Every structure is written in structure tokens, then in C-alpha cells.
């Protein structure tokens, strides 16, 4: 019988868990604060017992926005991590979040370099009914995808999904793109400015299982490959708006509200105008909606996002041996020099 090849990947020695990238998404804020408290209490001996296999850096990304319980102060921090934003000059008029992005890039990156964090998990909440969603830029990052599978198996009472934005590394704009591997862990529904205990607990489990997986991976466990569903983003749809005032003229239709990841077919209701008329989906392809009625997206002109779902095969993975790691580093360095 043919043995399937096991993909060997570098150890994940340095992991970052970030909360408060949007200051009013409170599960992540309170979770990182709690993890910081626990870390402080832990005795030094206990830390050494971990064997130094992995270090976890806990970060509160946007402290000024957190203090005011706002999404951001000047501009959305989670759009400030493109290469162009990161390398620009820092002047007096540079918005707060641009500066902070550069600080975070220095701390967790630099993006694209050998010194960057091995894995960044950025914690978010959404007002949309999205359960636990991992949002990444890749449909072939086996680390992220195995973590996803692990979470899906360990958290059976919450729907767990994998969302892929098909964006190049250069154009990737979010905090998680600074690490060698990274994803946003998006949990909803939760209003901004509120922490719901069930949502907090789901996020806490998600982080715990993720760290467990990394620990097992680093210890040499082989994770079997298989199949998983990937939702690849295709487009988004804005609300209908008044030509003059730009105010919205319809709300998400009651039959679509809260139906994230339920297939939307051509002709299905999308919006209900304030005079009671139903506006329907006129696309030709059935797609999967998500971020349905996310409060922060009104100003971005997004009522919902749409994705294609497909089955993707992922290989078995295990951590590289030290020898393999050395060979890999040499190759990485010469690629960088190019």
C-alpha cells in the first residue's frame, strides 16, 4: 500500500495571540488580559517545564482604541499592514494606527522576514452570526488548515469554518499577515462593546486548542491529512443607498439575517426596503454569504460578503527535524537575498 507523503514543516517556536486590534471587540480584549494575568501568576519553574518548545507573546494591539471602546481612533488598524503602509515615512500627521502598525510590525515581524513570528492569532468579534471562523490569506497553508481541523473536532457545539481571502502577500493588509503563518479568529455574534460569556468561552477554547495543537506539532506528532471545506471570498454586496444622502434605503432581509454560510441562490431575498419591497440576489452563481450585517462594515460599503465553497485536500504534516530545519533556513536566507 502506498504511504502518503508527510509534509515536514518548520517548528513553530514563537506564537503571538493578539486582542483589541479593534478596541470594541471585547472577547479578545478580556481574553488577552486574562491570559496576561495567568502568565504573571505562573512560577518561573513551570515555564521552564514547557521545555522551551514554544513561547507565546500576548499583545493588546490597539490600546488607545480599547481605552475608549472604539473600533479605532484615526483609521482601521487591521488595514494598515500592507507593505506600502508599513514602509511609509512616519510624519507628524501620520494617523495613530499607522504608527502603531509599524510598531507591531517591528515587534511581531518584520513582515516577510526570517525573524517574524511563526504564528499570529488575531482575535476578533463580529455582529454577524458566524460562529468561529478562521480568516486567512491562503488555501494551502497547512499549519493554519490543520489548526482549523483540530478546532473543528474539539469544539463540536460551535460551527467552525475556514475563510480564505485570495490576496497576495504584498497586498495582505491585516495584522495576522505579519507572521509566517497567521489568521484572524473571528467569533460571533456579539455586539461591539459587549462581552457575551458564551462567545468569550468559545474564543478561549479556540485559543487553547490552537496552542495545544502547536505544542503537539512541535513535539513531533504526525497529523493525518484529509479533506476540508474552504470558503474563498468572491465579492461583497453593499446596501442600496439614497443617491443624495448616501443613507441606506433597505435592511438585510429577515430571511437572510443570521443565515451566514447558508447557500444564497439567484432569486433569494437579499434586502427589504423600508417600504416593504423585497430585493433579490441577481448574481448568476449560488454563493455562501458571511459577515451578514456586520456593524463595522456599513462604512466600508459592505452588507455581506460572498464566497465559493470547495473541498480541499490537505497533506499529513509533522515538524521538521533539526537537520531539515537547518537546510530550510539556508534556503530561506538565499531566497531573501534574491
Amino acid at each position, binding site marked *: 500500500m502506498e504511504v502518503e507523503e508527510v509534509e515536514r514543516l518548520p517548528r513553530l517556536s514563537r506564537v503571538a495571540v493578539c486582542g483589541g486590534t479593534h478596541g470594541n471587540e471585547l472577547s479578545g480584549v*478580556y*481574553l488577552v*488580559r*486574562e491570559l496576561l494575568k*495567568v502568565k504573571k501568576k505562573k512560577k518561573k519553574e513551570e515555564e521552564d517545564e514547557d521545555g522551551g518548545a514554544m513561547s507565546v507573546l500576548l499583545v493588546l494591539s490597539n490600546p488607545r482604541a480599547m481605552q475608549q*471602546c472604539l473600533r479605532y481612533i484615526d483609521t482601521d488598524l487591521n488595514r494598515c499592514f500592507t507593505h506600502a503602509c508599513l514602509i511609509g515615512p512616519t510624519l507628524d500627521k501620520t494617523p495613530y494606527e499607522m504608527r502603531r502598525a509599524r510598531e507591531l510590525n517591528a515587534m511581531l515581524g518584520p513582515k516577510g522576514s526570517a525573524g517574524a513570528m511563526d504564528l499570529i492569532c488575531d482575535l476578533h468579534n463580529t*455582529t454577524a452570526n458566524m460562529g468561529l471562523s478562521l480568516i486567512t490569506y491562503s488555501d494551502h497553508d497547512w499549519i493554519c488548515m490543520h489548526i482549523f481541523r483540530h478546532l473543528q473536532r474539539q469544539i463540536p457545539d460551535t460551527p467552525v469554518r475556514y475563510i480564505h481571502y485570495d490576496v497576495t502577500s504584498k497586498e495582505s493588509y491585516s495584522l495576522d499577515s505579519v507572521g509566517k503563518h497567521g489568521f484572524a479568529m473571528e467569533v460571533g*455574534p456579539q*455586539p*461591539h*462593546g*459587549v*462581552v*457575551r*460569556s*458564551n462567545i*468569550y*468561552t468559545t474564543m478561549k477554547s479556540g485559543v487553547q486548542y490552537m496552542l495545544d495543537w502547536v505544542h503537539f506539532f512541535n513535539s513531533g506528532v504526525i497529523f493525518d491529512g484529509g479533506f476540508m471545506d474552504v470558503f474563498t471570498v468572491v465579492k461583497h454586496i453593499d446596501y442600496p443607498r439614497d443617491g443624495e*444622502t448616501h*443613507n*441606506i434605503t433597505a*435592511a*438585510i*432581509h*429577515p430571511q437572510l*439575517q443570521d443565515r451566514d454560510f447558508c447557500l444564497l441562490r439567484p432569486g433569494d431575498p437579499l434586502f*427589504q426596503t*423600508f417600504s416593504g419591497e423585497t430585493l433579490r440576489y441577481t448574481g448568476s452563481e449560488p454563493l455562501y454569504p458571511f459577515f451578514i*450585517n456586520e*456593524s*463595522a462594515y*456599513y*462604512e466600508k460599503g459592505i452588507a455581506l460578503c460572498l464566497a465559493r465553497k470547495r473541498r480541499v485536500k490537505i497533506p499529513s504534516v509533522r515538524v521538521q527535524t533539526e537537520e531539515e530545519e537547518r537546510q530550510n533556513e539556508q534556503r530561506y536566507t538565499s531566497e531573501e537575498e534574491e
Partner: protein
Amino acid sequence: MSSFSSCQSVREARRVAIFGGTHGNELSGVTLVHLWMKNGTEIQRRGVETRPFITNPRAVEKCSRYVDTDLNRAFTPENLSAPADGQLPYEVLRAQEINRMFGPKGSPDAYDVIFDLHNTTSNMGCTLILESSKDHFNLQMINYIQKALAPASCLVLLNEHPLLKYSTARSVAKHPVGLEVGPQPQGVLRSNIFESMREILKHALDFIELFNEGVEFPPCSVPVFRVSERVDYPRDANGNIMAMVHPNLQDCDWEPLNPGDPMFQTFDGKTIRYQGSGTIYPTFINEAAYYEKQQAFVATRRETLSANAVRKA
């Protein structure tokens, strides 16, 4: 049958205002008022002047609760009489302007009725908020609305507590009525919530029209939830929240909370129980805007108010 209770004569309700955007990120009211400012047919009734009005336009523009200070706490006697200079917070100046336009508060020139439209992140359903247990006109209107909406429910919150009562925008009118519909996140417009609020107002205006035409409304009972105390989150020495609303309490607005029942859950999973002496009925459970007001929920007690018969004077 109890002794005869006389019919209360109340002045016609000629001037009615509908306030939206008192909190700029509570979108049902903002949307309804914008809609009706453009086309007010739906809110017109015989014999009534119905005026839709955006109370906090700057907050609406920013989609934030307020700019400097909470407009719905700003209508205190001190604020309303303060000399208007450049130093006053935006909402205090706005409160003075609204008092001039729709009041003055306490005077015979004030608007007859003001409906103030609000949303909450709490699972309160449709709620009507009263500031007085003795406003028989309001009690009768609420009774009418409740009967019209049945079997759908619309509960009544009475805040007459001397310390917890606050100076609302609607308090400028002779008959102030708060409409609170949830759950809805701030900055989000949910279709079902929007339509519920719209329907409540429809029946409210129908009542006013009937009342102004001379219909007499017989005595009735109105069950209410009376505000008794405000309960904060457990906090540490630095004032940081140490626990969240317990999963057993989350979304259970208006349900009884008995001594010993779970109330909060710490971030590391421990349960904190309610230690009060009697059953309370929590509401405004986990309202986003109340974290800064030190309020995890409002405790209420059940009561039945008697409304006299009312008829236009």
C-alpha cells in the same frame, strides 16, 4: 366590583413629536425618523400634528452614542438653565435647544407627547418606558398598544426611582414615552427590530387619534416592572470588570432571578451567585452602553398599576 373611579379629563394631544437618534448609533429610530422626515404620510393622523425629529444629528453623523455627553441624561434643571456659552458640551447646548423647541419642560406650552426611539443590545424585546406611575393618559395608551400587538408582547418598564431616574430628552413633554426595542447591536439595522418599532408607533398614534376624537377609555390594569436598583459588574481594585453576565442570565431579561441563582461568570470560569433577599426581574442585561455607567443589569420588581378612565377634556 370596586368603588366608582371617576373618569380623568385630559387635554387633547395635539402636538406629538417622534425623536430618533437621541443615541446616534441606535439605528431603528434614526432610520424611521429619516424616513418620515422625507415622507410623513404613515405618521399622519386626524387632529394631530406629528413631528419626526433627529435629536442628536452630530452623533448620528458619527454613528456614535454621543459626542461629548449622553444627551438622554442631559435634561437636568441645571443644564437647561445654564448660560449658553462656548464652553458647554455639545449635548447640553442641544438639550437647551430641544427644550426651547418642544418645551419648555414643565410649562403649558410643552409638546403633549414625545416618543423617544431607542435600541438596546439587551434581549428586552419591545419595551415601553414610563417615568410616572400616575400618568393615566400614558397608561391607557400603553394598554391600547399592548392589546393591539397581542399575542406579541410589549412590556413596560417604570423608572420612578428618586435616585436612578434620569433626565431624558422626552421628559420635556407632558406625556413622555420611551420605546426600547432589542436585541440589536449598536450601528446595526435589523429588519425585524425596525418593523416592531414601527408597529408600536402605529398603534400609539392610532390611540392618540381616537382619544382626540373623544373616545373614552375605561379603567384598566397595567402590569409593569418597576426599577429598584442598578447592579454593576464585579470589579477589581483598579475598577476593571472581573466577570461577565453568566450564561444562565444572558438574554433572560424579565425572567425571575432568585437568591442563589448564577449571576456572573469570572474570566476563569467561576460562578458568582445572586445574594439578594428576594426575587428580582433583571432587565437591560448586558447593554453595551451601560458598561461605562457601571451597570450590568437593572433590577426590577413586578407591580400592577391601575389606570383611571380617561377622556379628552
